């Protein structure tokens, strides 16, 4: 829940008057709100929590953390299919559920 993952800013654009960015988390790309770090620039790293950049991070720290999270499978936990994860936890298999995290069309 409080997991925050370092990501690198690929692009920045205004959407509905809100500063948004596409951010790369070791291969997974997500849309992230930059309103709390308005001076973050393309190429810089930030700690991102539930789609919001909360604090700048230096590149070396970010890379190390991403490598560790990848090793531990934590990126899958954060960005994988939550219905599958819940089903796996319940040992039900995926048959009862067919939802995905991408239901919010972008």
């Amino acid at each position, binding site marked *: *829940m*409080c*997991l*925050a993952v370092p990501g690198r800013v690929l692009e920045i654009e205004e959407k*509905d*008057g*809100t500063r948004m960015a596409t951010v790369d988390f070791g291969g997974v790309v*997500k*849309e*992230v*709100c930059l*309103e*709390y*770090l*308005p001076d973050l620039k393309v190429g810089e790293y930030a*700690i991102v*929590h*539930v*789609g*919001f950049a*909360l*604090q700048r*991070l*230096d590149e070396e*720290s970010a890379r*190390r*953390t991403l*490598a*560790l999270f990848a090793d*531990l499978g934590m990126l899958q*936990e954060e*960005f994988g299919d*939550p*219905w599958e*994860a*819940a089903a796996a*936890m*319940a*040992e039900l298999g995926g048959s*009862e*559920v067919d*939802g995905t*995290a991408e*239901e*919010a*069309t*972008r």
Partner: protein
Amino acid sequence: MKYIEEFQDPELARRLLDDIHATVTRPWALMEVCGGQTHTIIRHGIDQLLPDQVELIHGPGCPVCVTPLEVIDKALEIASRPEVIFCSFGDMLRVPGTGRDLFRVRAEGGDVRVVYSPLDALRIAQQNPTRQVVFFGIGFETTAPPNAMTVHQARKLGIRNFSLLVSHVRVPPAIEAIMQSPSCRVQGFLAAGHVCSVMGVAEYPVLAERHRVPIVVTGFEPLDILEGVRRAVRQLERGIHTVENAYPRAVRPEGNPAALAMLEDVFEVTDRAWRGIGTIPGSGWRLSERYREFDAEQRFSVTGIQTREPAACRAGEVLQGLLKPHECEAFGTTCTPRNPLGATMVSSEGACAAYYLYRRLETPPAAPAHLEASPVA
């Protein structure tokens, strides 16, 4: 996993551990507040690498675990309504309410959707103007600013079919409540790094001073935890109690000013009930008067909820650090991730789930009930 070779930098881990072993002269009990840190500690066997005199007590910092049963039941009731699209983070799906969970509500036909970000829920509201979209706003100070920004955006864009079911909680009042408990054994705290990324450290010196406890702002990686423990133990051995920042790469003393300003605008401090613990004064946020129209509890008058906690569940004692998960009679027998009695067995940040996933085969069967937590052998 308790092999130091498996750390990202085994050499540094060894040096930190050597320093802790060399520093300790007597028993100390530290509490890691954050469930994410609990997960790291158990996953990597950090508690087993530390000297026997250093005990880590697992704190109540799992937002999924402390969301009150009454709020879960309200969520289940709202999510069951045909006009509602109920959006939540994935880790709330299997938290048991009275007799069911969001997973079950969805199987029964409720429109429950998992989102990565609260802004995704707002987008769903824009795309479905004839439906009521409710987002389950739980979490500590790390998660509150994203939810605050989302409500702020809803008002700015005039999206009226969006509302927030709020159950936000704050760390400092919880530390205060823990220290005031007569059975408290905590002598120092590892404060949650990402909470401090947002809030800064201004709230902590008064707690450190009043209760004479070191408070070390700590990150989430194994080496971060070792460094947090090392600094807390050094302070305790020297008889000092200050606030230290052992996570400077992500925490600035002032926190994130833009996020703090948004919290101030959208939320106001309120008393909040914590599951298994009870009401802690000033420990939560609710929507401020200006944003009250986006409060799902006001929009959907949920009445007649009869909450019922399983009698065998001792999550409250686990959340207060009075009991280690494996000391509960139900642990691993009548309570498992498949059939959880309480939220601490569901959430990946819950202490019971962490012990079940990483420690089950090593722990002895539950000892007779007692309130004196003892370290895992």
